[in-house]
């Protein structure tokens, strides 16, 4: 089994104006691994995730995805992104396209799939997230949980190697969180490499292979869910967990 990391972040530094968001962050993700990032608001966890597919540009350090650096001049960022799905807190479905077209647009335009092949895949993904009957609907008619499941199907339609989740359940009503987490759990069980920023501690413990705790732009502590939740080594981790658990 190969142990070469699929994501490798080295000494990443990022600031917005005078506000330093990431200080010298390094981390690795192995293929098939599910890494969950937790931490208080403003800790830099979302920024770290957004750096991974180039939505934020770090000032210093290196990010390698499948051994290709994002920081190199002339790197084909669109190509790297097309192999990496991203799910956003606010879903960001395309409101002018129906569910099916939301899912097929990128495979047809970016991967140059035939519309028929793209639709076949889209329908099978809609089946997987339990929304086959919504194919012809527009995003405005979907609930939050349904929207997020469509967004996951849309990202999966590119057949990515990695899935990034940026607080996927934070904008959902409580009764809809479960349906989205169930889809993510299934993905994890299939061996998808996933990096998840979340406030769902129960989910992190159950599904995560490894948990990172971030605060003030640094990774304070990392380990298996058991290590981090049951026996945190750092005082800051303990303080955070006592507030959220």
């Amino acid at each position, binding site marked *: 089994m190969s142990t070469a990391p699929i994501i490798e972040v080295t000494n990443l530094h990022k600031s917005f104006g005078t506000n330093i968001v990431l200080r010298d962050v390094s981390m690795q993700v192995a293929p098939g691994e599910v890494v969950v990032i937790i931490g208080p608001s403003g800790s830099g966890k979302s920024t770290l995730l957004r750096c991974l*597919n*180039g*939505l934020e540009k770090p000032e210093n350090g290196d990010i390698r995805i499948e051994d290709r650096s994002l920081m190199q001049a002339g790197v084909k960022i*669109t*190509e790297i*992104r*097309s*192999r*990496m*799905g*991203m799910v*956003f807190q*606010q879903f*960001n*479905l*395309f*409101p*002018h396209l129906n569910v099916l077209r939301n899912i097929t*647009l*990128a495979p047809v*335009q*970016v*991967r140059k799939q035939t519309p028929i092949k793209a639709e076949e895949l889209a329908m099978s993904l809609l089946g997987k997230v339990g929304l086959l009957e919504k194919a012809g609907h527009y995003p405005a008619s979907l609930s939050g949980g349904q929207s997020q499941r469509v*967004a996951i199907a*849309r*990202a999966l339609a*590119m057949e990515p190697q990695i899935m*990034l989740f940026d607080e996927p359940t934070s904008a959902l009503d409580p009764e809809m969180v479960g349906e989205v987490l169930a889809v993510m759990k299934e993905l994890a069980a299939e061996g998808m490499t996933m990096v998840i920023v979340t406030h769902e501690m129960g989910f992190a413990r159950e599904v995560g292979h490894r948990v990172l705790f971030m605060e003030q732009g640094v990774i304070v502590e990392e380990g298996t869910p058991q290590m981090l939740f049951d026996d945190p080594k750092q005082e800051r981790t303990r303080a955070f967990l006592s507030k959220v658990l």
Partner: protein
Amino acid sequence: MHFRFEIIFDYIPLLLKGAALTIGISALAIVLGSILGLVVSFGKMSTRWYFSWPISGYIHFFRGTPLYVQILIVHFGLVPACIGHTDAIVAAVTALALNSAAYTAEIYRAGIQSIDKGQTEAAQSLGMTSGQTMRFIILPQAVKRMIPAFGNEFIVLIKDSSLVALIAAPELMYWSNVMRGQYLRVWEPYLTAAFIYLILTYSLSKLLGWMEKRGVTG
């Protein structure tokens, strides 16, 4: 006041011919101005100063100076410099299109920038280029929001096209002036012209209202 309908009937063929030219000039200027305006708006939004600065200057000039002055500059300066002699209709279309582009550019810019940033991020995260993002995600949503502003701009343009009578482009206002000169009457030519302009702008606003409604439902 005695309103002489018979002189209106005398002049109706010329006034209609003028109105047809008004429609032609306006329509051509709208089409050219909208295309140029899209290009200008991309220039304005460019992060490269050698695009955005000249474009800003262009927008400031055409929004900050009277259309009357612009028409004269184009008619006596720009058009002769380009084709060797001047031509009232070419000058009229050019001046109105250049002027309109400066306004439609701002409509495009406002429409494009009103689309949530999350839309761009979602498109990019799927591997789309910025061109694909603009074409498939941003513009289709932005155009819908731009329709009311475009409607206003087109109506303004039809009304402003009356100014090209100054350079003797034989449109509606030109023939109204001729009519006044022949009969030395004020009410008949100008009220008739006003009435025809009203029909044009009213039909256009109805058409755009219909398009907007249709655009929203699908």
